[in-house]
C-alpha cells in the first residue's frame, strides 16, 4: 500500500551507504501488479551530528528520485526525521525523540533504568502506538492524510503533544507544531519541554525548620514567658510593683472560691 523506505544503515557515524528499497502499489494498481523498485544510493557523510545534516542528503536523494520517477507521487523519508511518504491514501510519519542526556534526573545520581525502551509514542490518543529504536527514531505506517496528534509518554519528562498535518495534495509535506506553545517544528524531532520530578524533595535538617514547627513555637513561647517576663517585671515602676503585690497579698492565695462569682466577697 505504501512506499516503505527502509534504511539499512544505522548511521554509525562513518560514511554510510544508504540503500533504499521502494515498493509502491497505489490503491488502483494494487490488484494488477506490484511495482518494485530498488535504488541504491551512496551518500558520503563525514559525521552525523544532528538531524539537520541528514535532511540535506535526503532532499538530494528525493530530488534525484523525483526526476527518475515523476509519476509516482513519492517522497523520501527513511530514517531522517520528519516527513512522510506514501501512496495516495496512506502515508508514513517518521520522527525522532531526543532526550538530552545528563538532564536533571541523570545528573542526580539515578537514571531511570531502560529509559529509552520505556518511551511510547502515541498517535491520535492511542489509535496507534509505537516504540523507539535505539537511536530514538520512530515511525507510524499507513496513516491517512489529515491532521494528527502525536503524544510521547515517557516517565520523568513532559512532552508537548505535536500536531502533524499530513497533506494529501503534496504528499510527504508534513507540518508539525507543538500544541502547548504553538511552536512550529521544521522537522519531527521531539524533545521534552521539561522534566517531571514526581517527589517532593526533603528539606535538609535545619534549626529554622525545627523552630518553625508547632512544637518549636511552643518551646519558644515558653522560653519567652519564662525569661522575658521577669525582665519586664523588673522594668516596672517599683511603686506600682508594690501596689500590685499589696493587692495580691490582700487577696491572698487565689483559690477556686475566689474565682467563683460571689466568692470574691468573702
Amino acid at each position, binding site marked *: *500500500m*505504501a512506499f*516503505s523506505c*527502509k534504511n*539499512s544503515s*544505522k548511521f554509525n557515524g562513518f560514511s554510510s551507504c544508504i540503500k533504499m528499497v521502494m*515498493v509502491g*502499489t497505489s490503491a488502483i494498481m494494487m*490488484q494488477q501488479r*506490484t511495482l518494485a523498485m530498488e535504488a541504491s544510493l551512496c551518500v558520503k557523510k563525514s559525521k552525523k551530528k544532528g538531524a539537520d545534516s541528514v535532511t540535506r542528503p535526503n532532499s538530494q536523494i528525493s530530488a534525484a528520485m523525483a526526476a527518475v520517477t515523476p509519476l509516482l507521487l513519492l517522497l523520501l523519508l527513511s530514517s531522517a526525521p520528519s516527513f512522510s511518504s506514501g501512496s495516495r491514501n496512506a502515508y508514513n510519519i517518521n520522527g525522532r525523540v531526543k532526550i538530552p542526556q545528563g538532564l536533571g534526573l541523570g545528573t542526580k545520581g539515578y537514571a531511570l533504568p*531502560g529509559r*529509552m*525502551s520505556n518511551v*511510547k509514542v*502515541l498517535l*491520535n*490518543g*492511542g*489509535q*496507534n*502506538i509505537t*516504540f*523507539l*529504536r*535505539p537511536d530514538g527514531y520512530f*515511525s507510524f*505506517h*499507513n496513516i*491517512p492524510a*489529515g*491532521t494528527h*496528534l502525536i*503524544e510521547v*509518554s515517557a*516517565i*520523568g519528562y*513532559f512532552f*508537548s*503533544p505535536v*500536531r502533524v498535518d499530513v497533506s494529501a495534495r503534496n504528499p510527504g509535506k508534513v507540518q508539525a507544531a507543538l*500544541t*502547548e506553545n504553538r511552536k512550529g517544528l521544521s522537522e519531527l524531532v521531539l524533545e521534552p519541554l521539561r522534566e*517531571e*520530578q*514526581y*517527589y*517532593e*524533595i*526533603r528539606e*535538609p*535538617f535545619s534549626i529554622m525548620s*525545627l523552630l518553625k*514547627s508547632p*512544637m*518549636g513555637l511552643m*518551646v519558644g513561647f*515558653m*522560653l519567652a514567658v*519564662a525569661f522575658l517576663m*521577669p525582665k519586664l517585671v523588673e522594668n516596672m515602676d517599683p511603686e506600682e510593683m508594690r501596689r500590685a503585690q499589696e493587692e495580691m497579698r490582700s487577696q491572698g492565695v487565689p483559690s477556686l472560691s475566689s474565682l467563683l462569682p460571689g466568692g470574691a466577697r468573702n
Partner: protein
Amino acid sequence: MAIRSFFLFILFFSSSLSPVFSLYEDQVGLMDWHQQYIGKVKQAVFSSQRAGRKRVVVSTEENVIASLDLRHGEIFWRHLLGADDVIDGIDIGLGKYVITLSSGGSILRSWNLPDGQMVWESSLQGPKHSKSFLLVPTNLKFDKDNVLVVFSNGRLHAISCIDGEVLWKKDFEAESFEVQQVILPPGSDLIHVVGFAALSQFEMYQINAKNGELLKHESASFSSGFSGQVSLVSTETVVALDSTGSILLTISFQDGKISSQQTPISNLVEDSLGPAVIIPSSVSGIFAIKTDAVTIFIRVIGKGNLEVVEKTTHEIAVSDALSISEDQQAFALIQHASSEIHLTVKLAHDWDGNLLKESVKMDRQRGLVHKVFINNYIRTDRSYGFRVLIVMEDHSLLLLQQGEIVWSREDGLASIIDVTTSELPVERDGVSVAKVEHNLFEWLKGHMLKLKGTLMLASPEDMAAIQSMRLKSSEKSKMTRDHNGFRKLLIVLTRAGKLFALHTGDGRIVWSYLLRSLHKSEACQSPIGLNLYQWQVPHHHAMDENPSVLVVSRCGPSSDTSGVLSFVDTYTGKELSSLSLDHAVVQVIPLPYTDSTEQRLHLLIDADKHAHLYPKTSGALSIFKREFSNIYWYSVEDQNGIIKGHALKCKCTGEVADEFCFDTRDLWSVVFPSESEKTIATVTRKLNEVVHTQAKVVADQDVMYKYISRNLLFVATVAPKGSGEIGSVTPEESWLVAYLIDTVTGRILHRVTHHGSQGPVHAVFSENWVVYHYFNLRAHRYEMSVIEIYDQSRADNKDVWKLVLGKHNLTSPISLFSRPEVITKSQSYFFTHSLKAIAVTSTAKGITSKQLLLGTIGDQVLALDKRFLDPRRTVNPTQLEKEEGIIPLTESLPIIPQSYVTHALRVEGLRGIITVPAKLESTTLVFAHGVDLFFTQLAPSRTYDSLTEDFSYALLLITIVALVAAIFVTWRLSERKELQEKWR
C-alpha cells in the same frame, strides 16, 4: 450563622493550595501498592541461551509482550502494544532478538531480548487479508544474514533478522487462495505454502527460500471440501477435515506431487461422534481431533494410514513439539483428574512410552488447563529434565517442574471487568492479637533510627532499614476493620469469571473464587461476567451477617441471552447461591432500599422491558410496593440516538404469574437527530455520593444553591462524521453538543454546543457539576469543560433572618415535576494529554474539597483540584474572590508533577479509576486498574483530621520534656527569688 461558619470552612480549606498530593520518595509503598501483570498468555517461547538468566518470552491477550524470569516468574521487561495491535506470533531470532508479528501480520518488530529495547520495526503490506505466520528458521541464511519468513496479508516475505529489511517478497494474489500452512523443511532451501482455494481446491506452492522464486505450483481438487484448520503431521503431509467434519483427509505433497487418502472417522472409532474439529498441533506424526465429548489422538503411519492411539473424555491440553535431539521430538500432555493434574511428556514417535509422568496438586479455583508450553533442560546426570508452563482457565500462569509448582502468576487480574468494595470483619476478642515489640533494645534501636532519620543524619542503609521497619510495623494489612476505614476488601471480577478479594493494605489476594455459574455448560454456552453489585452490606441490626456481593452475568455476548446471578460471601469467598434466570438482563438498577436483612433491592430490566425485583422475598416486595410510584429509570439506545425514561406500570400480565415481575411504561423520550448527532457518552452521578451542603457562599457573602439531583444525566453527542478518530474531519463539519437531562421528566435543563470539537468524550458527574474532556479541532488540543448548575428558586433564601425565623423553603419537598429555575455556569480550559479515564474523589461526608483524577494516555493518574475547574475563575480575581480561593484564570490547566497520584509508576493499560471513601473524612481510597493495579490513599485537602505518617513523635516528646524541665527551672528560680524577697 451557619453561612458564616461555612465561609470560614471554605477559607480553611482553600488556605492549603497547590501541590496537595505530594509524596517524598521514601514514602513510596507506605500507603500505595502497585502490581504488574501481563494477561492471559497466548504464546510462550523459551530462550535457549545457555548463559545468563533463564527467560521465557510471552505474548498475551492483553497485547503484552513480556520477558519473564523462568526461576521466579518476575517480569524482566514488558511492552503493551496498542489496542488494535493484536499479536499474531512471537519467536526468538538469533538467540537475542524477540520477533513479534502484530496487527494482522502488518507490523513486524524486533526487540532486544536482554533489555526489551526495540531494535527495528517493519511495516508489511500485502494485497489482501489472510492468516499470518511467523517462522524463524535456524539455518536459513542470505548474504550472511539470518532470515525470517513471514506470511501475512497474502504475501510471503523474507526479512533480514538484523535490520528488518525485506529481502524478497512473493504475492499470492489468486482471489480465493486461503493460506493454511507455511512449511520450512529443515535443511532445505524450499518453502512450502499450502492452502485452500475456492473451498474445494488444495493448493501447494514450492518457493525458493533464497530469492522467492516460485518453483512449483500444484493443486488438487476435493469434491467434499474442507472445514476448519489443518494439522501438519510431517513436513510433507497435512491432515484436514472435510466440510461435514466426518472424513479425515491425509494430503501429502512429497516432491511436489499431491496425493491424498480419505479416512472416515467412523472407521477409526466405532461409535458415531458427530462433527469433529482438528486441534492444531505441531507434533510430527500425531494429531488430535475433538468432538463434543471426546478427544482422540491419531497417529499417521507411513503414507496416510491412520491409527487411534488414545481416546479420552477428560479435558486435555497438548503442547507444541519440542525437539530434544536431531530426530527426537517431545511433547507434553496434561489431563485433569479431580483435584490433580497429570503431566506426561512423551516422544512423538513413541506414544506408549513416557519420558516423564507427574501428578501435581492443583487448586480447584484455577479451573482447567488451557495451554501448555514445554521446555527442557539438561540435568546434572546428563539426562533430560522438562519444565512446563501452563495457562489456566482463570488466566493464571504456572511453571511446573519436578512435580511441583515452582511459581504462579495471577494474570487474571490484568483484565478486571468490575470492582466493588467490602468491609472487613469487626475486630473482636481473639480475632487478632496486637503485636508487641520484641524487646526493649529493638524498640530503642528503632526509635534511634527514626530519630536519625528525622535529623537527616541517617546513612542510606539506615534509610532502607527505616523504610522496611515502617512497612512492617504498620498495621495496614490486618484482617479486621480499622477505625479510619482504610482497610477494606476490593472485590474484583475478572474476564475469566473469577472473583478476587484484594486487601487494600498491601494488595494481597485474600481469597479467589472461580464462579461456577460462569462455567461453560449446556444451558449457558459462553457465559460472560457483567457487573458486581453490593448485595448485602450489614450494619445496624444485621451485624452478624457476612456481607455479600451480587455478580450479574449473561450466557452470551448478545443482550437478549438469559442472565445468571450469583451471590458470593465476601468474608469467606464462597458462593452462597446462584440463580439461572429465565429472562435476559439488559439493565440492573440498584434501588436505595434494603430489606430487614440489609439485602439491597435490585431491579433487573429484561429485553422485553419487564422489570424483575430481587431478592424475591415478601419483605422486599412490601418495601418495593411502598416506593412503587417513585421509581424511575432511563435507557440509552446508542444506535438510534434515543434516550427514554421509564416507570413501573403494574404487575406482569400474561403467561407467568410472578408477583416479582412488573410491566413498565415509557414516560418520555429524547430523540437526537441522527443526521447531525450521535451519542457518544452518558454519565450520571454516583449513586452513593454524599453531598454535605447545598449552599455555596461566594465572595460577596452571597449564597448560591447547588442544584443537586440524583436524576441528572449528562449526554454528549457529536456529528456522525466526527465520531471517528482525530484527524478524520475538518473543524467545520464537526461539533459536540453537551446536554443535561432530567431523567424523571426528560426535561433538557441545559444544552451547549462546542463547534469544531469531537470525541472521545470522558466525563464525570458529581454534586452539581460535570466535567468533560474532548478534543478541540480548531486549536488541535484537548479541552476540558465544566458545567455547574445552580437552583435559582432558592436564591431568595439569602436573607439570614429568613433562615433564623424559618421562613425559608429549604425544607419544602422538591418535585422534579415542578419546573426548576436553574442557571448554569460553564468554562473551558485546554488540557495537554489525552485521557483514558476520569474520576472524582469521594469522601465519607462530602465535606472535603474534591479532586479530579485523570488517567492520562501515559497510564499515569493525575490529581487535579476541582478549583482549577471553577466557572467563576476570572483573569483578575478581586481581593474578595482571592480570599475565597479562586485561582486566576489561565488558558490551560496546570500539570504539577508532584500531583501525579501514581508518582513515578505507570498503571499500564489503564482502564478505570475507582474511588471509595474511607471513614476518615479527609481521606479517599483510589484504585486504578488496567493491566496493572495501583492503589493509594488520597487526602484532597491534606489530612486535617489525623496526624500524618511522618508526624514526628520524637519532637513532641522532646518538647514535652523541655517544657517540664523549663517548669522546674522556673519554679526553682521563682522560689529562690521569693526567698530573697522575704529576706529583704
